[in-house]
């Protein structure tokens, strides 16, 4: 018997509202299958299950708000007999809020939400006919037919925006309250990296084109192997190093706010693979279909604000992580090379790190390693 619990949805998310079950009792589950959709302050999340199993019983109703770790479903291992496996006493899952959530925000499936936003419909005014009054895709299409003038104004509920701000506020206040930050920055010449990239992209199809972002991510991941004190979390007054190079990537959402989903095993991935993973992550972060496994487990976060035109960014660490790397705009700047003044593309890298875990000297050597790695782009 497997008790499936609501997985962690990132360090700043401790609860979620069940929007939809994707499974029924009797269904078989393949590892990695999306079994439920849970709404959080930041986005609707596809919850994956990694157990090969058969569904015995669903323990949580659609609409219920539950804390992370709450048993959601009982699953049978392959070959397990449902009669002997049935739990003797099934304790009811702890609910934060019960059935009546209608006053909070409308229940709406992610597909329906996307469609409604596409059509410019006001989510608050949609009538749901799905389970427990949830708004389904059909309801949205119906409403679109009835509405002659689509309402462009609110693309999403103000409630959601407020919840997002509060979540960011809580995480960032905690960071500045608890983490003694130190900050370093270093300008990195990217002449070799950019000419390697231009040549690569000129020879590649559109789908194989790379962005400089992925080279920087890979360099950070490789450097972390040499500097493990920047990759991990601070828990119970001690540093717990991360085992893999799983990088949180700060992604700005068009409607405001940001999420930092995880790119896994960055040091072991090819640039091409990282590019397609990053593209998919950005797209899904923006249309609200991230998976539960993408929200938890990063040991460091990377933020790249260069596209917004700033020279550099000194970021706030995302607790309980202990470091954050920032990159500003890649821009042509004056540079001295072999005693000669020249103009080369450069980027200003920065490190915000937790002084409880590492010291400035250590952080400086880490940034130097990132710079060194960017001088041999073909080896990334």
């Amino acid at each position, binding site marked *: 018997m497997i008790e499936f619990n609501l997985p962690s949805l990132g360090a700043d998310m401790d609860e979620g509202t069940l929007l939809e079950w994707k499974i029924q009792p009797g269904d078989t589950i393949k590892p990695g299958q999306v079994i439920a959709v849970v709404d959080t302050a930041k986005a609707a999340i596809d919850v994956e299950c990694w157990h090969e199993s058969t569904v015995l019983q669903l323990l949580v109703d659609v609409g219920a708000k539950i804390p992370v770790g709450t048993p959601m479903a009982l699953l049978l291992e392959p070959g397990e007999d449902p009669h002997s496996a049935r739990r003797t006493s099934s304790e009811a899952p702890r609910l934060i809020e019960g059935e009546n959530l209608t006053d909070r925000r409308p229940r709406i499936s992610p597909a329906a939400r996307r469609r409604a936003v596409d059509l410019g419909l006001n989510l608050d005014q949609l009538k749901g006919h799905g389970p427990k009054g949830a708004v389904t895709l059909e309801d949205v299409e119906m409403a679109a037919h009835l509405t002659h003038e689509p309402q462009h104004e609110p693309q999403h509920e103000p409630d959601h925006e407020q919840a997002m701000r509060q979540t960011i506020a809580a995480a960032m206040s905690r960071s500045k309250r608890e983490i003694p930050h130190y900050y370093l920055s270093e300008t990195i010449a990217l002449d070799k990296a950019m000419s390697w990239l231009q040549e690569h992209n000129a020879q590649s199809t559109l789908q194989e084109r790379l962005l*400089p972002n992925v080279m920087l991510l890979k360099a950070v991941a490789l450097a972390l192997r040499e500097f493990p004190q920047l990759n991990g979390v601070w828990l119970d007054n001690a540093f717990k190093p991360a085992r893999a190079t799983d990088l949180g990537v700060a992604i700005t959402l068009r409607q405001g706010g940001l999420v930092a989903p995880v790119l896994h095993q960055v040091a072991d991935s090819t640039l091409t693979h990282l590019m397609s993973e990053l593209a998919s992550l950005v797209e899904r972060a923006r249309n609200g279909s991230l998976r539960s496994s993408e929200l938890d487990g990063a040991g460091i976060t990377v933020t790249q604000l260069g*596209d917004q035109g700033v020279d550099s960014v000194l970021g706030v660490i995302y607790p309980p992580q202990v470091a954050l790397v920032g990159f500003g705009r890649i821009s042509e700047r004056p540079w001295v090379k072999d005693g000669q003044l020249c103009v080369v593309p450069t980027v200003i890298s920065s490190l915000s790190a937790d002084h409880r875990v590492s010291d400035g000297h250590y952080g400086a050597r880490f940034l130097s390693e990132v710079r060194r790695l960017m001088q041999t782009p073909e080896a990334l």
Partner: protein
Amino acid sequence: MNSQVIRDEVLRALKGIAPEVEGDQLHADRLLREEVDLDSMDWLRFIEALNRSLGIAIPESDYREVETLGKLIAYLERKSQPGVDVSMNRR
């Protein structure tokens, strides 16, 4: 393809990435990436969307020629006329 068809496809591709964009409020002579706030990933997805709908893959080396809405539409118009510019068929 006439410029109206191209303009519609450009706006459709743009809306796919930035749903809040209103076509009639865009300035033909402003930098598109700044006006619509497209980051480098958005821009690449936009170029991919144009390739899917119009069959024109804009190489990186031509990005300067497509930086405003007006220049982009003129560029696509040029490239969509068969035989006029052979160099576009290099990929």
